[in-house]
């Protein structure tokens, strides 16, 4: 397998800066070269559904813009200057210093510099996110873990029904804002209080301060965020529930809610009542448009092919198989999951339904994905559910195409969600819009 990456769909550790931007009134400070932060803003936010600067992102991010002098003589003094200025200029509740390749390669002691401020009572933490280390899925975890380790204090008492949600990555998931809101609404539907921590109206540092007070954590994710939950269990003794499938549509969402209900020891009848109402809503629309599904699916994608991270590839595959009755082609997982999770993930695709399985390839190289798919033959046009990179590929193999993952430059994304009951309906609408617009 080649080590080359064409058409990147994830970036470096420093991409964790976008998780900071997603926390209300948090201010990122990047200790790195002059271009890193701006490139990552472009790749993760702007050219990804045209998510914008937000509050303190984009060109508002404070940064040291390390130059040759800082490489040769060290950049700690420059970092102090920039933190000093940021504390005066930037109106923030939490400051997060993130390092780039330069600072980490030359060995600046960023942790010590930042801890000096913390000792003076400044709400500031540091994450060592030198780009060469790992990808931005880990960068996200490093940012969260830095806040847990360096900022949070044990809670005097647990707030019953309070649940922290660790799920899709801010900005990396183009639909994160809508998805997290949708997850909150679902959990609230069960009577829980969901602490989603990122995005509009998520509560900023007050919400983060409540993290240790949660009754439990939910990791709604194939693998990202598990290390966060384990850290919280270790540090504050908070139990966690790991539900590895992003719930899209009625079947998966209802199952998710039942598992949560059991874990939280909620009354079955309350959970059932909520699920019943939501399912009635969801199936009303499928039922109303059943004519379409009977009559207009003659050019239905014969096979769907996901090219996306493990959140979406697994979540969408299960939705399309178990709800819409579609058949999967080969699936590509692009978030480079650590080895220890790959077998489990592949196993989930091997048993999507009783008689339905899909082969999985772990790669984030668009070149490899393209050459694999160009070798295949399709009886009818396949549907590629991937990124804007994949438009040319879809055309080459005569398929339909929908962008749902980074980078998205052929759609504007505001608050759309694919998670939950309503999210499933949105995905069905978008998939068939992608098919119908072809004619």
């Amino acid at each position, binding site marked *: 397998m080649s080590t080359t990456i064409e058409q990147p769909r994830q970036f470096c550790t420093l991409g964790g800066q976008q998780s900071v931007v997603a926390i209300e009134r948090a201010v990122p400070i990047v200790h790195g070269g*002059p271009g890193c932060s701006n490139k990552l803003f472009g790749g993760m936010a702007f050219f990804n559904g045209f998510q914008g600067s937000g509050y303190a992102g984009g060109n508002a991010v404070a940064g040291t813009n390390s130059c040759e002098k800082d490489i040769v003589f060290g950049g700690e003094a420059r970092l102090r200057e*920039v933190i000093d200025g940021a504390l005066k200029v930037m109106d923030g509740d939490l400051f997060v210093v993130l390092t780039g390749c330069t600072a980490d390669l030359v060995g600046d002691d960023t942790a010590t510099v930042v801890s000096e401020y913390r000792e003076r009572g400044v709400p500031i933490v540091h994450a060592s996110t030198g780009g*060469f280390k790992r990808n931005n899925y880990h960068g996200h975890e490093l940012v969260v873990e830095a806040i847990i380790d360096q900022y949070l204090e044990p809670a005097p008492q647990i707030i019953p029904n309070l649940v922290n949600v660790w799920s899709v990555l801010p900005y990396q998931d183009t639909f994160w804002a809508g998805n997290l809101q949708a997850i909150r609404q679902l959990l609230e539907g069960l009577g829980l209080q969901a602490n989603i921590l990122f995005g509009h109206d998520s509560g900023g540092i007050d919400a983060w301060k409540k993290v240790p007070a949660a009754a439990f954590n939910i990791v709604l994710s194939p693998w990202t965020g598990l290390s966060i939950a384990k850290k919280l269990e270790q540090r504050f003794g908070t139990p966690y529930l790991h539900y590895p499938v992003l719930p899209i549509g009625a079947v998966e969402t209802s199952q998710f809610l039942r598992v949560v209900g059991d874990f939280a020891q909620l009354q079955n009848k309350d959970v059932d009542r909520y699920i019943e109402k939501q399912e009635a809503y969801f199936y009303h629309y499928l039922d109303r448009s059943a004519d379409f599904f009977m009559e207009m699916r003659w050019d239905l994608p014969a096979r769907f092919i996901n090219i996306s991270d493990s959140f979406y590839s697994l979540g969408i595959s299960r939705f399309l198989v178990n709800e819409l009755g579609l058949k999967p082609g080969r699936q590509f997982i692009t978030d480079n999951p650590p080895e220890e999770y790959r077998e489990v993930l592949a196993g989930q695709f091997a048993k999507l339904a009783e008689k339905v399985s899909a082969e999985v390839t772990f790669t984030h190289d668009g070149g490899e994905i393209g050459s694999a798919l160009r070798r295949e033959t399709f009886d009818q046009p396949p549907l590629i559910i991937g990124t804007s990179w994949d438009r040319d590929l879809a055309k080459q193999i005569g398929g339909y195409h929908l962008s749902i993952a980074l980078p998205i430059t052929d759609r504007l994304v505001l608050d759309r969600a694919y998670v939950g009951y309503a999210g499933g309906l949105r995905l069905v609408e978008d998939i068939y819009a992608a098919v119908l617009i072809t004619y």
Partner: protein
Amino acid sequence: MALVNLANSNIQTREQRLGSIISYEGNAADLAQLSRDGQLRDRTRSFTQISSCASSCAICLLSLIQDAAVVNHAPLGCAADFSMFNLVNRYGQFKRGISPANAHLVSSNLTETDAVFGGIAKLEQAVRDAHTRFNPKAIFITASCASAITGEDIDAVSDSLEIELGIPVVTVHCEGFRSKVWTTGFDVAYHAILRKIVKPPQTKRPELINIITFWGDDVFTELFSKLGLVANFIVPFSNIEQISRLSESGATVQMCSTLGTYLAAGLESIHGVPEIKAPPPYGLAGTDAWLRALGRVVHKETEVEALISSERAAIADELSELRKELKGLTGYVAAGSVHGHSLASVLRELGMNVAGGCFWHHDPKFDNEDPKADSLEHLVKSYGDFPVSICNKQSYEVVNQLRRFKPDVFIVRHPGMAVWGGKLGIPTFLVEDEHFGLAYRGLLRFGRKIVDAVNNPSFYQHLAKHTRLPYTDWWLRQGSTTFLGAEE
């Protein structure tokens, strides 16, 4: 001229070659004078927001060459701007009637292991993959902070793979930390082109005029056809064969010396292609001077005078209407150096006031060292003085100034900065097409655009009412130079 040393894969940065600065606050006339006298010194800035780096500028230009490929030898985050250049590529292809296709870009994806043990094998693999996948006519390898700090010998890879693959393989030294001025990235990209792509002339094509530009609409072909000249746009949307013959052209013109200074001077010094030394072709005075300078070099003085008269006559009535409509309005301009001077000229030509200008850096001279190309001095002489600040996209300073100057319209050339005008409720637009206000007819286009922007400000008004700036009240009460320190 000692400017271009083709034996060396690297060149000096802008600050080393030209004395470029990124910090200044004062007025345009003083800045021009200090530049001319060689007295300009940069100042330190203690608090900074993130800037941009040379790597983006280099990758942008090179990835838009239609039959080349770019290999970024870096961790994957340095490839986060690939999707931007891909969209620029597809949009440009669409506008030119070419079927949109993905740009030819790969990353060697340096990781922690490579930082310790070296990533040369991955670079070789990436270059070979780029060759197999795209069948390019040339491959450019762009360096990164990480590849430089770990001491990767990219030049050795370029040299050996060039022989193996039989196409030019060229190192581009665009490491982010090397220069505080991101436009150094243009210079190193052009240096790569001059070193290994441009060939000595086989013939001379005096009618062909090299136009160093980005991706703007073609406003030159028609203009030049009236002079019997042919427009040769470089380097975005050109190809390697076309670039290899740049030495055969009759002259090189630029719409922005910030972009083209090194290539224009290099083509003249190495291959004798005359560079047209003139202010940029924006505003009547600049366009007249630019055309006359071109006319002198290509011996078309009479044709140029006729063209100037007819173009001026063609726009006279509407220009006068626009001037009436825009009279009394103030604009604030934020853009990369010379293009900022051009936008300010356009506003003044349209009868507007320029409340101020913020330029991302300033070059006190260009590589041709010719005062006739001094766009700032031209601007001051033609249209008068105005307040100027130089900052490398420091949005906290720009917000501070916009609140102070309260312009009627904010005009920006660089992604990521327009939003701050909008959040303040100021009608704001981004000049995506750098040719939009160019020459005579561009004045009219630009004027109509401003009229549209100021006549329906509803979007900006609502935005301002419902947004919250990330800046403290303390900062918004300070002068914008608070964090500028001593001269370096």
